[in-house]
């Protein structure tokens, strides 16, 4: 374990991972947009409410049918974007919705498919939507959520995935658009797969991601951390993770830790009434928590800013050197702040 050198976080280093001149943040209010589409009753509203509005998955059964296009910005979170959900009964490319304006500022098109429902109609609609969206904006990132897989066996899941993948590829090939890269996620609102899937979608929209990955790698190396995540505490979506392969079980542990910390902070947290007050859940910049696991591992959480928190998993022995970890964390925190500051300056200049 070694101390991280402040010089490693100067702006020259960041420039290797960022090109402010070509910053393509969303126009308008500056928020990237995620368009959510899918057949009726595929689970679009449930996903949105569970991920961003902290609704319990059981309560989503009682959500009413979405009667109109829901355009909601996500506030109170590091994830400064907006979601546009089109009801399954409506055609998103109807001229009444001005599709050119919608999709030209769209960062990602997220299509939700109900794995337990009839697939052909959904796949046909999805292919058509992707083709039309691509024709409007070639920079859109296409994500497919194969949803409601919690009720399927592993074999059925894989079979469904293969079927969807093949059908979409065939449709795109028919239109000579097989160069479109589509990411598939198997999701369910009853476990953490939906959060992880959304995390991956969000990461693609974070321009500072390479710099953050590098920072996390360096922190892990310096502190002997096995796995680290940079979480948005409000939505439990991780904005960045290190280069090590992600592990769903670790991610679930981290989410549970956030839940526990949030609940305890809500009871014992220190609230301040001023403009720099912490979020409503009681966090402040000094917040941190430690969970010692039975398997000789430690989970630690340290607040980076009012929305972001660093959660790391490491062995018990290296964790004893708290002073070093704290020092390295401070360097890491300064680095993250500088990364986003540079991004803000770039937007302003642009």
């Amino acid at each position, binding site marked *: 374990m070694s101390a991280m050198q402040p010089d490693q976080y100067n702006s020259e280093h960041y420039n290797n991972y960022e090109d402010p001149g070509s910053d393509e943040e969303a126009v308008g209010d500056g928020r990237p947009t995620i368009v959510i589409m899918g057949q*009726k*009753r595929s689970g679009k509203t449930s996903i949105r409410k569970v991920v961003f509005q902290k609704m*319990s*998955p*059981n*309560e989503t*059964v*009682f*959500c*009413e*049918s979405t*009667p*109109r*296009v829901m*355009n909601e910005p996500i506030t109170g979170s590091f994830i400064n974007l907006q979601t546009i959900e089109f*009801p399954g*009964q*409506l055609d998103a490319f109807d001229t*009444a919705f001005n599709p050119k304006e919608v999709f030209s500022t769209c960062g990602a098109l997220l299509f939700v498919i109900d794995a337990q429902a009839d697939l052909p109609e959904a796949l046909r609609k999805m292919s058509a939507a992707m083709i039309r969206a691509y024709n409007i904006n070639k920079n859109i990132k296409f994500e497919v959520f194969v949803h409601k897989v*919690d*009720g399927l066996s592993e074999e059925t899941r894989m079979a469904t995935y293969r079927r969807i993948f093949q059908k979409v590829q065939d449709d795109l090939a028919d239109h000579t658009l097989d160069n479109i890269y589509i990411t598939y996620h198997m999701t369910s*609102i*009853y476990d953490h797969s939906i959060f992880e899937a959304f995390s991956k979608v969000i990461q693609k929209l974070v321009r500072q991601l390479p710099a953050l990955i590098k920072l996390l790698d360096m922190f892990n190396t310096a502190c002997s951390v096995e796995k680290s995540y940079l979480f948005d505490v409000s939505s439990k979506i991780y904005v960045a993770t290190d280069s090590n392969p992600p592990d769903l079980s670790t991610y679930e542990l981290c989410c549970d830790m956030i839940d526990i910390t949030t609940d305890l902070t809500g009871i014992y947290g220190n609230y301040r009434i001023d403009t720099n007050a912490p979020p409503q859940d009681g966090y402040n910049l000094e917040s941190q928590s430690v969970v010692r696991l039975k398997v000789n591992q430690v989970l630690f959480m340290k607040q980076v800013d009012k929305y972001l928190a660093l959660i790391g998993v490491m062995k018990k022995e290296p964790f004893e050197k708290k002073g070093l970890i704290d020092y390295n964390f401070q360097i890491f925190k300064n680095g993250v702040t500088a990364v986003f500051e540079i991004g803000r300056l770039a937007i302003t200049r642009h």
Partner: protein
Amino acid sequence: MALCHFCEEHGPRVVMTTQALKRTGIQRHANVDEDEEKGEKKKEEPRYKMDILSVNEFGKVDFDTIPQITDEDVVFASWDRTIELVDDESRCEACSSVGPNASHIANDYLAGRSYVTTQTAINEDAYAVTQSVCFKAHNTQNLLPLTLTSLEDDEPTPSTSESSKTEDGEGIIFFGKAQDKYTAVGRMFALKDAKSRGFKRRYGLLCISQNHQLLTWKFKDIMVEVNMTADLLKLSAEKVHDCEQEIDKDQVIRSGQVLGWIQGHEQPKIEYDTSRSFTKIVGNEEAFFTLHRDCVSILQILLKPDATMKFDGMSNLSVSRYVERAAEAMAIAATEDFAVISKKIEQPELKAILIHLVRGGQMICQCDYAPVRSKFLFAFSVLLPNTLVDIASDQRKYCIEKNLLGVDECVPLPTPEQYDLVIIKLVKTYENECYGVADFDVNVVRLPEEQLEPVPSVVSKYLGALENEIAHTTTSILHKALTTIKEEFMTLVTSISSTYPTTARIAALLKVHSKPVTDLHVYQFWKLAKLRVPRNGKLISISEEPSFPSKPIQDDLPTTRKVSASIPIPARKSVCEDDVGFSTLSSSMPSVFSSTNSLPIGTPSTGSFAQTSPLSSNPSSAPDSSRRGSFLNSVENSEVLDQCRPVSDDDLFATSG
């Protein structure tokens, strides 16, 4: 008017449309080009014939100027029933209403208009517009608050008030599209449904017009009616929903009461019924008919010409003619009510009531339903000259000045020793909430103690008209008969008052013409109509001899215009015939029948004295009594009650000669 909803399967759909169509004598195929119509005449039988589910008519006998083609055809509007209503959209039961080629019809012959309710709009333009409005209404993010319609006049208008993004998606919409030249206002609301996602279904009640100014001007009037309809629908749906939740207890988890212990994998699948029809949700098989009636009422409000507005292409003369016809229609409706009421009262009691009224007595109607009181009192107003009717149907306490007074049953009334009154109580015996019809019994609680004998001639004639079979063939004939009797007696009063100044001479004249002496009592009251002397609420005693001015009283003033001339009121003293003893007070006393309220095609939930067809109307069809002038000022001094000198028979014969 359009009812739209968001279907689970099909998205936004127009469920029902009510259109107002002008009545013309020529039948045209609405979807056929004029050139084609002028060309070859179609000889084959029309493939489509509209199914008429109901026809309600108002004023047909008196105002229908369009001859019926055949006995079978129902002539209405400017189109016939051989038109096919084209619908491009797929529909389920939830998206359907009256059926693809069926309609409810309401004919307003007075206004020269027909109101047709169909599943989709009749003509292509209206069809496209309603679809567009429905789509846009359901996609509106910012709705105006529901409290907008309860604002006072100085509160912000729809354009200036802040919109609110309501969580439940309920509110008022107001938008227009210049290129399509339409404006729409409406109420978006949700009905509870135990078998839909989220236990609610989204509906919207929309009012669409090409006339932006019209909708802006009548925004509040429309929204009051629309909100009332929406709230009633919500109430009905809530009752059905609660009943279903109560009955189907095995599915109680649907209401989310036991969420805490349910695991995602173990949760039973809830049975949805996405195609549940509107009638099932509100629990009323006749819901569309009721809605048709309400939409007709709203369109009537919208299309009623307002004296303060100017409509393009409608002259002031047309407006005044419309108002006159409206007044006549209301008078005929009142006569019809009077005919029904007279059958509910025993003959001796009816006679006593009529005698009391024509003498200027006060009749009080006790009933807890204000519209019913209003109708009842209005019915009796046809028996008196317009200027003598002082009607107040919604008083919270006893008021002596009004000769036709309506109060709630709990209002205390004076004892018989204090005032001689007729008190009638209306008791509800039957009500049909679906059709908004109710029946009331008429109970005579109190009659005046003094019974005049013989019966005054005008009362005898009134009773004779009621018993006359010919008069009962149509209401308009009876109305004309009663009006003629009234006018004849009024003419007599006018001529007598100008020719015979003293009561004694009048009594002698009546004796000569074999008129009952009791006519003098009626004469004493009816002469006030020409003299503009306000009533004091008391019956005039014949023993006090009033004096009359020598100068003829101006009687050429129309009853509906303001009387601006004023003459000083003399003090009570002995006045000879040459003195001017009467005053003409300035007063604004609009005629009973000049009200500009909506026409009563029918009345929902207002009680009926006749067998009315279940059509809707503005419940406030009775004249607004608050606009009447008050006769409170110096009632004692306004009548000059002086002693007259005795009249000898010589004088009498000299005069009559």
